[in-house]
């Protein structure tokens, strides 16, 4: 049901993109106006979201310690899984953001008769996530060749590396294969694992389907229905130089592709995709476990909250304390 809803939603977007692209003035709308709107919404609300997070303080230091703390000099500390210094935190965050360190730990639990619980390492999700995210990154970076003129050597080199197989013409990009693979694996996992299927929302399927549609339209444009790439680049560079143009025929599919990308940009800051920003701000990962070493301040700490006073305690129990020969302040 939720899967169907997501697919229908994306199909509806495809249809909208298609219809707008074939009505007069529609191409100009999608090609010259919408990208600015979408990009502005993306940037603005991304910032609004992050600033919204930042407005709340981190009152306590609550890192999840995933290894030995720093204590006695001869006890070997897990410097990156339980960092006590800024340097350690930076490495921990780098490992988290670039290598998905926490997912790498993943295990799978199985219940057998007995009852007997077995826990085994399970790296599928880690692998699927890596495949998808890195493919996505490469695809996005590759697209810079359409926005930058002249194309910088690095972007050229990336395209070359991505197409090093030298099969098909135009050359096959490996990331085109792997992004689809990653999407299919992540989507499939949601369907196949009962636990994940039960928790998945439309919000979880929809972005996968949307990105799948974007990737598919892109792949179609490269290998099958080829619109004029020179025109497309002129449009893209036009956008990036604030002189948007529709230089000539580009094919409806290009506008559908562009429309879907705009949809993704607009959807991004209001959705779970904000994990892209959130991963950097998670207090259980980005703080050093130096809790007992340095004082950490809480801006809303209420100094008026005092413990039940010793004086009050002694007043209540003075007699029994004296009898038990426990020293008292007032005789």
């Amino acid at each position, binding site marked *: 049901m939720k899967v169907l809803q997501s697919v229908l939603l994306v199909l509806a977007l495809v249809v909208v993109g298609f219809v707008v692209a074939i009505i007069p003035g529609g191409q100009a709308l999608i090609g010259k106006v919408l990208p600015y709107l979408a990009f502005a919404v993306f940037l603005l609300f991304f910032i609004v979201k992050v600033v919204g997070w930042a407005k709340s303080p981190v009152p306590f230091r609550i890192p999840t310690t995933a290894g030995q703390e720093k204590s006695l000099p001869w006890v070997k500390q897990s410097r990156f899984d339980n960092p006590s210094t800024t340097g350690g935190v930076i490495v921990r965050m780098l490992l988290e953001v670039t290598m998905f360190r926490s997912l790498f730990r993943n295990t799978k639990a199985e219940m057998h008769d007995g009852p007997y619980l077995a826990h085994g390492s399970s790296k599928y999700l880690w692998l699927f996530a890596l495949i998808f995210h890195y493919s996505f990154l490469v695809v996005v970076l590759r697209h810079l060749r359409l926005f930058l003129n002249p194309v910088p050597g690095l972007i050229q080199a990336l395209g070359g590396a991505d197409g090093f197989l030298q099969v098909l013409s135009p050359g096959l990009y490996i990331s085109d294969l792997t992004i689809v693979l990653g999407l299919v694996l992540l989507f499939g996992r949601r369907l196949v694992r009962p636990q994940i299927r039960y928790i998945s929302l439309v919000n979880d399927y929809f972005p996968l389907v949307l990105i799948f549609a974007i990737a598919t339209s892109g792949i179609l444009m490269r290998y099958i229905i080829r619109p004029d790439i020179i025109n497309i680049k002129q449009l893209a560079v036009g956008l990036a130089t604030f002189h948007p143009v529709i230089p000539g025929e580009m094919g409806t599919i290009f506008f559908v592709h562009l429309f879907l990308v705009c949809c993704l940009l607009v959807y991004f800051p209001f959705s779970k995709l904000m994990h892209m920003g959130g991963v950097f701000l998670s207090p259980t990962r980005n703080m050093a476990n130096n809790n*007992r070493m340095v004082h950490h301040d809480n801006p809303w700490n209420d100094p008026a909250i005092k413990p039940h006073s010793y004086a009050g305690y002694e007043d209540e129990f003075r007699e029994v*304390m004296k009898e038990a020969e426990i020293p008292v302040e007032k005789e």
Partner: protein
Amino acid sequence: MADPKAEQLGIGVAKDPSLMTGAIPRRGWMDTPAIFKPGNYCYPGKPEMVEYLNKALPGKFGEPRVWSPEDEDWKLPENWKEIILEGLRERLDKFRSLKIFMDCCVRCGACADKCHFFLGTGDPKNMPVLRAELLRSVYRREFSKAGKIMGKMVGARDLTVDVLKEWFMYFYQCTECRRCSLYCPYGIDTAEITMMMRELLHLVGINTNWILEPAANSNRTGNHMGLQPHTFKENIEYLVDDIEEITGIRVEPTFNRKGAEILFITPSADVFAEPGIYTAMGYLLLFHHIGLDYTWSTYASEGGNFGLFTNNELMKKLNGKMYAEAERLGVKWILGGECGHMWRVVHQYMDTLNGPPDFLEVPKSPITGTVFDNAASTKMVHISEFTADLIHHNKLKLDSSRNDHRKVTYHDSCNTARAMGLLEEPRIILKEVVNDFHEMPEHTIREETFCCGSGTGLNTGEIMELRMRGGLPRANAVKFVKEKYDVNTLSCVCAIDRATLSVLMDYWTPGVDVCGVSELVGNALIMEGEKERETGLRFEPLAGSEEGEADV
């Protein structure tokens, strides 16, 4: 309703259709209401407890009243919804963590099978991701545009009394052990969410007595059991008598003594309940062995802090006694006993809540001269850190063969493991005081350790089945080493563990004793002038004497 026998429950856990055994519930979770029946909920707080705490912290604990979760009407205040939503808004503004954890979850499900309650119950709402969604769904409705407009389609729902009831059920089926947060790619910490949720529930007077009563006691008498000063002292003196009987040595602890170098604080359970008392005997022997200048306090006689299970304010209030007493007595620093959640509070919260304690000095071991730089600001050292340092400097005379009647494994307490990182120190100690030690299987120890299943104030008799289910993953790992290596002793550094794991072992793996690491230290310590020991600290026969008996 009688609690099921282990054998019967064991079959149920493995065979009954649940999300854990591969069956998918037909109804969506939003359409599955929480149903309370005897055995699946903790008893609500007694009105006098609520009243007492409300006097201590006005407005934080709702209206005192008699109510039952099984009743249709929970006698909520008329504006309960407003209170909850306002409270949620306030907490979103106070805790960045809560905002991030509400916004960033992608429901990847990495956490799903990490929760001991999910593993033991198969209840979908015990998957950490879904536990958080119980709140997130309301958050979306009230705090996001998409949720307001599109509702259920984007996983949003209204806050109703049924939702509130569901919260009460499932945020009291979380022990804040943080195991899920270890695997979460965004570090989403369900413990943090559960803490917020319990705070909110307290605001409208939804609570459990097993948490409120110890908290109220702790505030008044200094400890959970409500032991008054003379009783506290007496209890320790009983232990002193027992030590004399076993070792021939009379140790001489002092109480509320000004001018002592060190204030020692441990959970009060170590003073009054088995098997914690044997751990306390271990402390007493150790401090005597090294001639430590220390004092107990009857005012700050509780290491544990049930405020952690209610709200920030009460946590701060109860915790404040430690520094207040240290200042009053004029000690140099504080030594803390074996406890899990106490150390969560001490390590992650104390300095921020009630520090920095500038009247104390950076802890320095008077025996070895080691300066505990890792506690430079908080000025409180864990007994395992302290003992491991003594051992490293060869300051203890030990005869580890006195623990030869024990084949030992070690349970990392969730708090010391994942909210502190105290993993090696207890093992360093165990290596010296025990000859036969075996680790439980990987993925169940160290940072991946399983909770005892009864932490955060769930250690109460009325939810025994739930506790045994929640403790199953831990018990299962013990069973593994019991069957493979004949392990008969589960050591730990947590007072709640000592209480709950004992029950858990009796249920799932009978024949395994639970003890504190310091009990094993006490057994092994060769005290100057002691008589030959015939028993361990719990008067159990030692390995040699058992053989002797067998020969007769």
